[in-house]
Structure formats: structure tokens, C-alpha cells
């Protein structure tokens, strides 16, 4: 037996299903995040991304299937002790200062980092000057950055972030991107939900695209955005030549004509993550 197999995944879900009354939010999802890996979860609204991460952090109970964090059952104290989480919709009590929010979470995670840890985390998310500012006096983006700092309290091994940059300006997004790269360097595993394809493309090692509760595409951003072939429309119908590139297009047309086909159209299949995404999910908005 290889030793690798005995090292638990940082985060793993297997055959995960979730039903909310008549809505089947997840239909059997498999996904793993390895140690030090940054995995992005993409998908249209309502695809089940938040449901998946809520199960992983123990907020929601799966209808069927397993979810584990660092080898421990999702939601167990052992799992939660390894975890930092930023919810999609969250709020801190308005009367707490930034420093007090972090202090509360230090106590709940038994972190002994003290004022030094709080200062370091606030500086990481560019809130060093807002240390004594109360939450209800903070802008939405500041609160989201405080949420990210909160998720990092107690140096978790696994970080689950549900749309951490949804309220951030471009500078804020950049701060988060740099932060994520730094964390990966430290061996932290990250599962990240986002609608920002460019962001995911820049930072993620692997991407999974979810649609209507199912993983419809998965791989590294490079794999998902590789040239995907040339599509040829002839009197025989539409045919895709896998692996063909723009360079092959003229030759493919010539061959088809030589073979007596009528060529109505030729299309080089485009290659960004966005195309892969749109192809995988269709134009679905739910």
C-alpha cells in the first residue's frame, strides 16, 4: 500500500447528495482538495456550490454521501478545529470592533496568538487602521475582509471561502489573491467559491464546475482552457475534430472539399476557461 493513500485528503466529499424538500441541490458530487491545494468551485446561481461547502463545514446535513475534513467527519469538532470558513452571507455583531471580533474567534478556536495574531491578520487584509472600528461603521467590503481575517484565526489547515471577493473592489480582490497564493505557499488547503473566472484561473490549482448539483467539468485551469478542436459544418452535419488547432483549420476544410463534401462553416473552438464554463453550464441562469 502506498503511503500517500493513508494521508487523508484536506477535504473530501463522496457521492454527496442534498435534498431541500423538493429541490435536489446536490446529486452525487465527488470532490477532493489535497494538502496545499487551491481548488475553485464554479457554477451558475443555484448550482449547489454553497450547499456543498456548507456540508463540508458542518452547517448543513447531507442527505446521502460522506464529507470529511482532514480525515474527520465534516462538522465534528476534530474537523472544525482544522477549519477556517467565510460564509457567503454572514454578519458580525455591529457593536464589536474588528479587534473584538477576532478576539472572540480566538477564544472559540483556543488560539493563543493574542494581540500579535490579531494585528497580523488585520494587516493581511489591509484593516490595520480599522482595528478599533466598530463593525456597523464598516463598509461591506471592509466587513468581508474582516470575515477573511476571521477565517484565518488560529492558522487553520483548511480554508473554505464562499465568494470571498463578492463585495471587494479591484484592489481588495488583489489583496485576497496575493493572500491566497501566500497561504498555498504555507501548505494551507483552500476551497474557493467564486463567480470570477479570471480570479479562479489566476490562483486555483484545480477547478470543478458544478451545474444543477452535478460536477460537469473538472481539471486544472490549463486543462480546462486547452484548445478544444475545430468544428466543421458540412452537408453531413457538424463534426468536431478533437485536438485540432487554428493551424489545422485550412487543411481540414481542404480535405473535406477533396472528399466531395460541401463545407458551410468552420469554427476554431475557443479556449478560455470562460468558454469551457459556458459550454459546461450552457446559458443556464436559475
Amino acid at each position, binding site marked *: 500500500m502506498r503511503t500517500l493513500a493513508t494521508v487523508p485528503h484536506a477535504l473530501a466529499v463522496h457521492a454527496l447528495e442534498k435534498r431541500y424538500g423538493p429541490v435536489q441541490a446536490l446529486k452525487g458530487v465527488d470532490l477532493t482538495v489535497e494538502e496545499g491545494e487551491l481548488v475553485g468551485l464554479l457554477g451558475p446561481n443555484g448550482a449547489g456550490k454553497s450547499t456543498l461547502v456548507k456540508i463540508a463545514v458542518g452547517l448543513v446535513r447531507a442527505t446521502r454521501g460522506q464529507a470529511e475534513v482532514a480525515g474527520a467527519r465534516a462538522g465534528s469538532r476534530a474537523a472544525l478545529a482544522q477549519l477556517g470558513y467565510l460564509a457567503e452571507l454572514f454578519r458580525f455583531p455591529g457593536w464589536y470592533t474588528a479587534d473584538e471580533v477576532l478576539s*472572540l474567534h480566538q477564544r472559540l478556536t483556543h488560539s493563543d496568538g493574542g494581540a500579535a495574531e490579531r494585528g497580523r491578520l488585520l494587516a493581511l487584509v489591509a484593516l490595520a487602521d480599522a482595528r478599533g472600528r466598530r463593525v456597523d461603521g464598516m463598509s461591506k467590503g471592509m466587513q468581508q475582509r474582516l470575515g477573511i481575517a476571521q477565517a484565518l484565526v488560529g492558522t487553520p489547515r483548511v480554508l473554505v471561502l464562499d465568494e470571498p471577493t463578492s463585495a471587494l473592489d479591484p484592489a481588495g480582490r488583489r489583496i485576497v489573491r496575493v493572500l491566497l497564493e501566500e497561504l498555498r505557499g504555507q501548505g494551507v488547503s483552500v476551497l474557493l467559491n467564486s463567480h470570477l473566472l479570471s480570479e479562479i484561473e489566476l490562483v486555483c490549482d484545480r477547478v470543478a464546475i458544478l451545474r444543477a448539483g452535478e460536477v460537469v467539468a473538472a481539471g486544472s485551469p490549463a486543462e480546462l482552457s486547452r484548445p478544444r478542436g475545430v468544428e466543421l459544418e458540412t452537408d453531413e452535419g457538424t463534426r468536431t475534430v478533437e485536438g485540432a488547432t487554428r493551424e489545422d483549420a485550412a487543411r481540414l476544410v481542404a480535405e473535406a472539399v477533396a472528399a466531395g463534401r460541401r463545407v458551410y462553416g468552420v469554427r476554431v473552438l475557443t479556449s478560455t476557461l470562460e468558454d469551457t464554463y459556458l459550454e459546461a453550464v450552457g446559458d443556464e441562469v436559475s
Partner: protein
Amino acid sequence: MSAVLTIAGYGFREAVRRKVFAVVIVLTAAFLALFWLANHYVFTRLSTITPPADVHVDTRTFAGAFLLGLAMFSTLFLGVVLAVFLTLGVVSGDAERGLLQPLVVRPVGRATLLLSRFLGAAVVCIVYVLAVYGIALAIIDQTGHWTPPSTLAPGLELAGGVVIVIALSILGSIVLSSTANGIAVFMLFGAGLTAGLLGTIGHALNSTTIQHASRDAAWALPFEALYQDGLRLISSNTSGLTGFLLQLGPFGGAYVHGWGIRLWSVAYLLVALALGVLFFSRRDL
């Protein structure tokens, strides 16, 4: 243990910031001032009240027990208001606002989280109920020179009743939104009081049907039974016509009473808390 204190403190601070305490303290001060005034007038005029020569009523005891009964009713009411507003949104309300999720994903455990919120509210309400009850006793003693035969036990029973309401409110907060839960708990409270009054009427009319309905309600809503038992204790040494008249009044005291209902209340509380922990452990957030 430190997690319990942290969470209880979190709840306490929320109550301070939401001005729950401020409102309750103002209401309480107003009540106590009025109560003092009522006692003052009742007892200074006591000497001028002369029942017919052949009727033997101990007017001081009657007035004292009646006024203390009134104070106990008000204390229970104010205690329940405090209990409900401290806890009505502990789960659903805080989850809807997104306040709960960051706490639940910490390695504290949902049971500890819920029970800490319960303990925090219970400590606050017990201190409050005993303080208001104690001040009411002192006012009656100072203005009317009357003390009930039993002083501590009725106060503890009142506090126990409020603690049961806290457990019900927390249990309700798991399945109902804040507003619905607040309404539900106050309706239960009102139903309990009505059942208690019905029992008094049932005994006055000697109607077994009403008596049975009232008795069943007392077991189903033991906070009411504890309050009634407290009323029974403060007039337990009255006899003859004084006792009879007190029994007829709204603060007449329990027909379900004693250690049976006290033990049942403890069991009821534990079951409510256990159900709360169970439901909360299964609730999606």
C-alpha cells in the same frame, strides 16, 4: 468551560446593546414605584376598614397576601418578557441574520453553544426575578409590616417558572422565526395564566370539568403551576374566612402543588433542553 463563558458573555453583550436590559429596568422601576404607592395607600387605610362585627377577616394578612400575589404575577410577567426577548432569536433569528454561522463552525459543539446561551439567559433572569421579588417583599414589609410564612421558596419557584420559559423559547427559536417564536411563547404563557384563573373559578363553582382542565394545563405548562404553588405558599398559614377569600381571588394559589410538580418541572426543563439540543444538531443553517 471557557467556551461556555465566551458564548454566554456574547449573548449578554447582545442584550445590553439591543437595550433589552434598559427597557426591562425602566419597566421594572415603574412597576416597583407603583407597587410601593399601592402598598402605602392600602396599609395606611387598613385601620379604617372594619368588616362587619360577625365576620372574622385578618385584613392585614389578606391585604399583604393579595399584594404579594399581585407582585408575583408582575414579576413573573416581567421575567417572562425578559426571558423571551433574550432568547427568541437565538437560533433562527441569528441564523437568518448570518450571525450564527461563524460561531457554529468553531470547534465548540452545537450542544455547548445552545446550552451556553440558555445558561447565560437563565442566570440573568434568575437574578432579575429574585431581585424584583425581594424588593416587593421588602416594600410590603416596610409599608405593611407583613411577611409571608414562606419567603425564599416562592421566589425560587417564580425563577424556576421563568427558566422553563427560557427553555421553551430557545426550543421554539430552533423551529420558528423570531417573531413567530415570540408570539408562540407569549401565547403559551397567556394560556397558562388563563388556565390557572380557570382553575380558581372551577373550585369556586365546584366544577370538576373546569378543575380537570386546569390541572392538565398545569402539568402541560409547569411554569404556571410553579407560580401557583408560590402563591399557595405565601398564604399557606391563612385559614378561616381570610384563607377562603384569598382562594377565591385571582392569586388564590395552586390545586396542583408540592414536590410532585417541582420534580416534574425539573424533568420538563431537562426534556425541553434535550429536545433543543437534538433539533439544533439536525438543523441546517
